[in-house]
């Protein structure tokens, strides 16, 4: 018998709330977390809005925020969400559980490079005659103006290390940064680590913010972001004919997942069972998904097969639904290919219509949303859905949450480079 893995703790920091009840209440109410960018002056960028986490104060979440002072927001969001998840699981106390069997697998992003410092350094050390940067001058100035702590914190392995150090998690420690699929893939691989017996408990999820000048620059250059000119809260319109790109969000979602017997023995509260996972590659292009959705199809089908859940028992699909032309078309196509006629009977929604795209953290927050949807019997809507797209003809739960009991949900995450991950989560039953 394969080991069964259950979710025993959850935590979030999102543009729609810094607790799970608050976030879910806002999602069900169809509220938007999107507004003008306040982190920096984005007035002249093609995109001027995003979904920011507001009024975040780490001191409200962890006892000793000074340990995180040099960290980027990715680590700070992660610390707060992890604190909630561990508290929820009853595992904050280091004497609870064998910490050597308690690991970390995150899909966490990079720290943020100081834009002003870096760009002004380039400007003043560029040799116009040689049409090239003066390396000697750059190094001299860089050594003076870069902050050692902030530079170290940009490295991609720092967030999982901080969490393991702070919460005393001595098991396997991984981080994957597979673009927009990262935290879903992390959760899937964390599941496999416990299934295999390499650990009994894993802290898993993701954390990210790309709401900074380099992030918006990069995505604007790729023309991936919405440049909607009207009310920013109407900008993210997954599956709508007039969708024009995604909206950046930020935040963190963390889960404690645990082997069932281990959870039972310590009398843990069980939120759900994580039953299926698959990841595949499109192997097509760095920018676009495969037009026939071959990677996404294999991925969704693989996750359902892994879960042992019958197709007709999947009651809700939390879509990747980025609001880009290509993703939403291909994702709808893939769902139809996998589910056949059933596809039209399964409610599908994208919470990115309300909180934007949390990039590496998106999948974890979306999986938590699935678990809350199962618990409450309410499915969050796809907001801003106005004009149907003939190629996106599924039931997207338009504009209004829906009461609908379900015992199994599918959550999709697809990323730049052709990364596909799907997870299946099920209501727990003995």
């Amino acid at each position, binding site marked *: 018998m394969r080991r069964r893995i259950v979710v025993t703790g959850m935590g979030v920091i999102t543009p729609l709330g810094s607790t799970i009840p608050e976030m879910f209440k806002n999602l069900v109410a169809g509220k938007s977390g999107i507004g003008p960018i306040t982190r920096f002056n984005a007035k002249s960028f093609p995109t001027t809005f995003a979904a920011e986490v507001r009024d975040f104060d780490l001191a409200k979440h962890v006892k000793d925020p000074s340990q995180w002072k040099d960290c980027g927001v990715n680590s700070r969001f992660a610390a707060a969400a992890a604190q909630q998840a561990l508290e929820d699981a009853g595992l904050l106390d280091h004497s609870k559980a064998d910490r050597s069997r308690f690991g970390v697998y995150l899909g966490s992003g990079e720290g943020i490079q100081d834009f002003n410092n870096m760009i002004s350094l380039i400007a003043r050390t560029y040799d116009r005659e040689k049409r090239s940067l003066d390396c000697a001058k750059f190094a001299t100035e860089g050594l003076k103006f870069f902050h050692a702590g902030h530079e170290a914190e940009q490295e991609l*392995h720092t967030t999982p290390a901080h969490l393991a150090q702070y919460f005393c998690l001595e098991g396997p420690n991984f981080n994957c940064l597979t673009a927009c699929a990262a935290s879903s893939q992390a959760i899937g691989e964390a599941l496999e680590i416990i299934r295999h017996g390499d650990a009994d408990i894993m802290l898993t999820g993701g954390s990210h913010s790309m709401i900074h000048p380099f992030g918006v620059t990069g995505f604007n250059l790729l023309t991936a972001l919405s440049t909607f000119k009207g009310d920013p809260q109407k900008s993210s319109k997954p599956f709508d004919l007039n969708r024009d790109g995604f909206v950046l969000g930020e935040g963190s979602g963390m889960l404690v997942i645990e082997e069932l017997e281990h959870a039972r023995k310590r009398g843990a509260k069980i939120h759900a069972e994580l039953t299926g996972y698959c990841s*595949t590659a499109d192997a097509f292009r760095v920018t676009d998904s495969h037009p026939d959705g071959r990677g996404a199809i294999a991925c969704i089908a693989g996750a359902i097969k892994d879960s042992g859940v019958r197709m007709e028992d999947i009651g809700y699909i939390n879509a990747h639904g980025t609001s880009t032309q290509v993703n939403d078309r291909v994702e709808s196509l893939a769902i139809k290919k996998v589910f056949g006629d059933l596809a039209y009977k399964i409610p599908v929604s994208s919470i990115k219509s309300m909180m934007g795209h949390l990039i590496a953290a998106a999948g974890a927050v979306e999986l938590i949303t699935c678990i809350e949807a199962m618990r409450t019997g309410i499915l969050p809507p796809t907001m801003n859905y106005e004009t149907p797209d003939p190629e996106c003809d599924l039931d997207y739960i338009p504009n209004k949450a829906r009461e609908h009991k379900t015992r199994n949900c599918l959550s999709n995450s697809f990323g730049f480079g052709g990364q596909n991950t799907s997870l299946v989560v099920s209501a727990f039953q003995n």
Partner: protein
Amino acid sequence: MVVSLRRAVITGVGSLTPLGNDGPSFHSALKDRKSGVSAITSFDVSTLPVRFAGCIPDFDAKNYVDKKDRKALRVMAKTIQLAVSGAQCAINDSKVDKEKLDRTRFGVIYGAGLIATELNELADAAIVSSSGDPIKVDLDIWGHKGLEVIQPLWMLKYLPNMLACQVSILHDAQGPNNSITQSDVASVLALGETFRLLCRDRGDFFLAGGAESRINILSLTRNSLFEELSTDNENPQKACRPFDKNRNGMVIGEGAGVLAVEELEHAKNRGAKIYAEILGFGAAFDQKKDGSGVARAINAALKEAAIDVSDIDHVNAHGLGCKRSDRIEAQGIRSALPKTPDVLAVKSAIGNLGAAGGLVELIASLESFQTGIVPGTLNFENADPDCPVPVLSASRELRKNCVLKVSMGQTGQCGAVVIRRWM
């Protein structure tokens, strides 16, 4: 522990290193006690505290990538070019006929790190948006005029998942694809995850790899601020001294290490040359910074491998050359293996290749299986009582058939892999 009937073997090696761009020449240079560490000459490093590194001379990805795919190199940073070149070398060495592979069961799992942007690519935008004395950047200008003078695919050139993604695109590998970003441990963790994926039947043929180049002005400047680097500019080849009493910091290097990892029957059916079998993997976090995490990773890998310590020819160590790191590692190895086998450290000859390091180093041991000779550890002269392990200083004959690879990061992540020579 789940027991799988599927067995994972290594059937191809791709190594781009400061000491040669294929397995045999890399091994032979190590055996001849050559050093790949040298002064950096490709750009002006005169104002940096450290002016040497383990550089690959004259790396040109065009020499490795199919002619039809060369255009794609333009959207790849050097690190990504190393990754795709290393992949090609591993595929060539495995002699696999790609046309016969089931592409949905062909996976790519890489270790990757933070990739520095090429500063010149942002220079036009920086200049157009900056003015005054002292110079200040005006975001109002950057947002429209700046953006106009940066190439559209700029960001994709530097995303860490593009190592594995570009490899998957070039070789139509539609199976599992992951990018593990755990600093110096990344590629060993990638190999471990590959081993798990293969044994749980998620694929039959994988490329497990890592690649990294930090030899550029931005990475070197940043790393000078937070890494413990040896500043022995007078004696670059002597700078990195793993486990030596007089070690004084690490040396940065660049490269790629990629392994073709294949299911045993799949390999046998096509008559592949088999280097070694992967027997065990373990990972842990060294929260107490006393080597207990290293020891747990080793013990987990050994337990799974079900071998006796006396079967281990040598421990292929992380051996960074830093005071604290080597002490922690040596204590961890010693506590897991009180009868400690010989310990080999490769970094003294090539530097710390970051996300590529673990697998490039493992390739030295894989080539030892082929040649029967284990290279010695360069620059190990004075034993340090804080590092109570027998460091192999001179090369010798291979005596036993198993190797334990240890990899660790300065923040505490640890990984260990056991491989056995295929006979």
